[in-house]
């Protein structure tokens, strides 16, 4: 009964990975455009993850530890980007930062451009990736009993020492897991990126361009490499999401 669903997932991906010929794959890797696009995708995804970590870790901590008015609303807002159609995300970000908006003109004056720039891509990727990071790390902080932090305080450790000697060592797996999920989500983003920046070209955009310009077969070789990176991240994610082993 459920087999069609499993097959629907296995067969297309399996075929995708097995169909391209090895020589085509290698020659695709030798094209500068392909390498640059893959590198650009990886770089922007990692940059977005770094931004999400810097701003998201305190947010996750606050959401896990404090109760305040409107917490539910903030939780909802954090989940929202997962549900917004991707081109709409791109359009929304352009509306805010675009050349004709106030913010856009301010940024323009200090030399920062959004449309068609790496900065723009990173902002989009933060938007789509950060929810994965924040939710994962928040769950991590929630799993640290507040008792442990209290016990640490009573043993003489201040708040900072407590965070670095108790909270962080317990939660670091979730931080890594969140970062991997954020990177994986960011690297696979297409709809929002193509609105904000068709050029410089990221890997998903390149795949799309080759598909429309040259057809299925030609795009598969690039897709193979992008899928390989995604699968690698996915395997890392599964490893880190395993329950902590008892030593």
């Amino acid at each position: 009964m459920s087999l069609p669903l499993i097959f629907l997932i296995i067969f297309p991906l399996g075929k995708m990975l097995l169909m391209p010929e090895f020589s085509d794959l290698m020659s695709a890797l030798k094209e500068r455009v392909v390498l640059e696009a893959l590198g650009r995708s990886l770089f922007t995804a990692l940059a977005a993850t770094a931004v999400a970590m810097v701003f998201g870790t305190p947010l996750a901590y606050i959401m896990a530890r404090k109760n305040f008015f409107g917490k539910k609303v903030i939780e909802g807002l954090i989940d929202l980007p997962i549900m917004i159609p991707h081109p709409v995300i791109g359009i929304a970000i352009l509306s805010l930062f675009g050349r004709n908006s106030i913010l856009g003109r301010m940024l323009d004056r200090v030399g920062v451009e959004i449309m068609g720039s790496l900065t723009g891509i990173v902002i989009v990727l933060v938007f789509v990736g950060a929810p994965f990071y924040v939710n994962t790390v928040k769950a991590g902080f929630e799993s640290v009993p507040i008792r442990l932090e209290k016990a640490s305080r009573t043993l003489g450790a201040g708040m900072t020492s407590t965070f670095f000697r108790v909270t962080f060592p317990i939660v670091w797996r979730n931080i890594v897991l969140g970062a991997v999920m954020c990177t994986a989500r960011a690297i696979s983003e297409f709809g929002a990126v193509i609105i904000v920046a068709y050029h410089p070209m990221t890997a998903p955009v390149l795949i799309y361009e080759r598909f429309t310009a040259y057809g299925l077969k030609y795009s598969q070789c690039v897709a193979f490499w992008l899928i390989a990176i995604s699968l690698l991240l996915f395997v890392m994610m599964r490893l880190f999401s395993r329950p902590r082993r008892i030593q």
Partner: protein
Amino acid sequence: MIEVNDLTIHLPGFSLKSANLKVEDHDFFALIGPTGSGKSLLLEAIMGLLPVDRGTIRLNGRDITATPPEERGLGIVYQDYALFPHLDVKANILFGVRYHAIPEKESQERFRFLVDTMNLGHLLTRHPVTLSGGEKQRVALSRALILNPGVLLLDEPLSALDPMLQDDLKNLLKSLHQELGTTFVMVSHDFSDVLFLANRGAIIHKGEIKQAGTIQELFEQPGSPFAAQFVGMKNVFSITPCNGSAVTLNGLDIQLDHPVTGHDHLALRPEEIVCDPNGSASGANRFAGTIKKLVNRGFYYDVFIRVQEVEFMAQWTRREIVKNRLEPGTETRIAIPRNSLHTF
């Protein structure tokens, strides 16, 4: 010495009302009360883990009400132990050493002493998840005691353990207290534990301290029906105050061994009621009554006896029940020694 003055804490759904408390040096002090009475709250407030609405907490005369917990010089052992799961037993025990000005040599000595006393030598490289409840408890005790705290606070140390381990831990706590001379403050809901361990204590009920004093006083002279019930005087009755050393309990004349005035409650432990089918006991109040119910408690029975309008509860051994062939409906005689009666 800990002095708590007029301490008030408001939480949603519960408040601790103007608590006053004094714990002397080297005391084994017990905060006693049923679940939800606020005794753990008071402990957390003393430790500094809870914001206080009003009142002061003093340690050896110094006001520590606003001192952060890490600077109070107190130790706490939680009911769930709160061991650090990512550290092994040794690292857990040594966790706090670096924050205290303890010379290397002394901390090593103390570590060795505690590991020996607590019998933890074979566990030092294990992680907390692999330990049994009793082992965790001993690690938590060592972790707190290595810092030589001015006062060690214990949050229901016995309640999460098996009965077997409870005995061991009681003996361990008692000998630690004697050996180290540290002041202990323990929270407990079981008076029999307290009886064995503590020398002084206070009874808390619904966020209010009902009575404080030596354990002997609490045990023998409870000052309220709640305290009487709590220390095991299961028979608590309202009495009509009479003159001299006789009182009337719902029509029953009862002789006391000393004159009282103004008291309107009588309390009595169930095990003090003597099973006396032949009426041979002397110096006692003697009554005839009917057994209403017997509840098997293993070694002994709870026996409910109706004497005229009054129902007494007694505790007699199985041997007595069998010997006197007691069962529901049996008419028998009971004797209540005068010196077992307590009024307030």
